[in-house]
C-alpha cells in the first residue's frame, strides 16, 4: 500500500511538471481563437457576400472534421508541401506545439464564432435602436451598446467552449508533444501501471477545468448587472408624504 502511494505521488509530480505545456497551448490557442472568432463574426454580418461566404466555408470546414485530423494535416500533411518545407515557415511548422496551437485556433475559432454570432443575434434590437437614437454610430455603438450585451449573452456558452478546448489540448500528445497526456503515456510505457497514471492525469484535467469554470463563473457573476450589488446605497424606505 505504501509503495502504491509513493508511486502515485511520484507520477503526480511528473505530471504536474507537464501542466505548463497544456496551459500554454490552451492560452495561446484560446486567445488567438477568440480574436479570430471576433473577426469571423464581423465577417458574418458584412454587407458584401464574399466575407460571409468565407465565414460560412470556414465554419463548415472546421466544424465538420475532427480536430485530430486537422492536427495531423497541419503537422504531417503540410510538411510535404514544398514551399512550406523549404521556406521560412518550416521553422514554425516543424514544431508540434505550434501545429497544435494553429489547428486548435482554426477549429475553435469556428465554434466560438458561431457562439458570438448567436449572441449577436440575441442582442435586443431596441438597445441598438436606442443607441442610434442617441446619435451613436459605428465603433461607439459597438463598444457601448452591442459588445456589453454580446459578452454577457455569450459568456455561458463561451465558458463551455473553453472547457472543451482544455480537453482538446490532450490531442497534442498524438504528435509527440509532452503535455499531461503525453507524459502519462510515457510513464505507462515505462511502468505498465495504467490505472493509477491515467487517474492522476484525469484528476489534473479536472482540477484545471474546475479552476477555469470557477474563474469564468466569477466573471459571469461580476458582469451580471441584474444581480450586482448597487454601488450607490439606496435608502431602504421612502419618507412618507405628510
Amino acid at each position, binding site marked *: 500500500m505504501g509503495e502504491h502511494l509513493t508511486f502515485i505521488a511520484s507520477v503526480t509530480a511528473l505530471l504536474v511538471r507537464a501542466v505548463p505545456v497544456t496551459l500554454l497551448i490552451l492560452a495561446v490557442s484560446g486567445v488567438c481563437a477568440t480574436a479570430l472568432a471576433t473577426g469571423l463574426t464581423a465577417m458574418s454580418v458584412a454587407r458584401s457576400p464574399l466575407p460571409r461566404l468565407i465565414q460560412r466555408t470556414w465554419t463548415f470546414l472546421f466544424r465538420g472534421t475532427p*480536430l485530430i*485530423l486537422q492536427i495531423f*494535416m497541419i503537422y504531417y500533411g503540410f510538411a510535404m508541401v514544398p514551399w512550406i518545407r523549404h521556406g521560412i515557415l518550416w521553422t514554425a511548422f516543424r514544431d508540434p506545439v505550434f501545429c497544435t496551437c494553429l489547428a486548435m485556433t482554426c477549429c475553435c475559432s469556428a465554434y466560438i464564432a458561431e457562439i458570438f454570432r448567436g449572441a449577436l443575434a440575441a442582442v435586443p434590437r431596441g438597445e441598438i435602436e436606442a443607441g442610434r437614437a442617441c446619435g451613436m454610430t459605428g465603433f461607439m455603438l459597438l463598444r457601448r451598446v452591442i459588445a456589453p450585451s454580446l459578452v454577457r449573452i455569450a459568456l455561458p456558452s463561451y465558458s463551455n467552449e473553453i472547457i472543451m478546448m482544455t480537453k482538446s489540448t490532450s490531442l497534442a*500528445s*498524438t504528435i509527440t508533444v509532452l503535455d499531461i497526456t503525453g507524459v502519462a503515456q510515457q510513464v505507462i510505457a515505462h511502468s505498465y501501471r495504467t490505472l493509477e497514471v491515467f487517474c492522476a492525469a484525469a484528476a489534473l484535467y*479536472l482540477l484545471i477545468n474546475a479552476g477555469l469554470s470557477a474563474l469564468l463563473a466569477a466573471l459571469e457573476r461580476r458582469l451580471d448587472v441584474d444581480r450586482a450589488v448597487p454601488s450607490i446605497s439606496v435608502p431602504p424606505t421612502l419618507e412618507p408624504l405628510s
Partner: protein
Amino acid sequence: MMDDLSLLGFGPDGWAPLLLKGCMLTLAVSATSMAIGTVLGVLLAWARLKGPRWLRRTALVYGVVLRGVPELLVILLLYFGLPSLILSLAETFGWDAPGLPPPFLIGSLSVGLVSAAYQAEIFRGGVGAIAKGQFEAARAMGFSDLQCFHRIVLPQVARIVLPALGNVWQFNLKDSALIAVTGLSELMRTSLVAAGSTRHPFLFFGVAMALYLVLTTLSSTAFHYGGRYSNRWDRG
C-alpha cells in the same frame, strides 16, 4: 497527378475500398457509441431526477468527471486499462482468462461513456421542459410511473431533445476519430496508414477530411428532416 488519382482509385494500388470501409466502420462505431450513450444517458437522467440520494450524487459525479476529462484519456484508459482489469477480475473469481475485448467494443464503449454524460444532461433538460401539471394530471388519472413515461414523457421529450441529440451525434462522429489510437481501422486510422505507406499525407488527410465532411453534412441533413418530421403536428 495521375499517380494521385490511381492512389485514390479502386485499382490494385488504390485506397478507395479501404477508405470506404473506414467510413462504414466510423459510422458503425459512432452509431454503437451513440446507442450506448442513449441507454446509459437515460439511466443517468433518471438517476439524477428520481433516484435515491446516493444514486443522484453518483450520477452527478459521473457527469462532472466524464465531461471534464479529455476523451482521448478515456479511450486510452479503457484501451490499456480494461484488459488488465478483466484479467485481475477473472483471477479473483477463479475464472478462465477471457480473450481481450475487441478494439471496436472498447472504442465505442469509451466514446459512448462520454456521450452518455452529455446525453444525460440533454434528457434531464428535456424532462424539465415538460409542464409540471402534466405529471400531476397523469397521477390523478392513476397512471403508473411506467405508463407516465411511455405516454407523457417519451413522446414529448423525443421531440424536444432531437436537435441537441443531433449535436451530440456530430461530436460522436468526430470523437470516433480518436479511436484511431487503439488501432481500429476506421476512417482516421486508414488515412493515417495510407499517408504513411504512400508518403502522401497531404492527399490522404485531405481526402479523409472530405469524407468526414460528407458524413457530418449527410447526418446533419438527416437530423434536420427528422426534426421537421417529429414536429409535423406542431406547425399550425
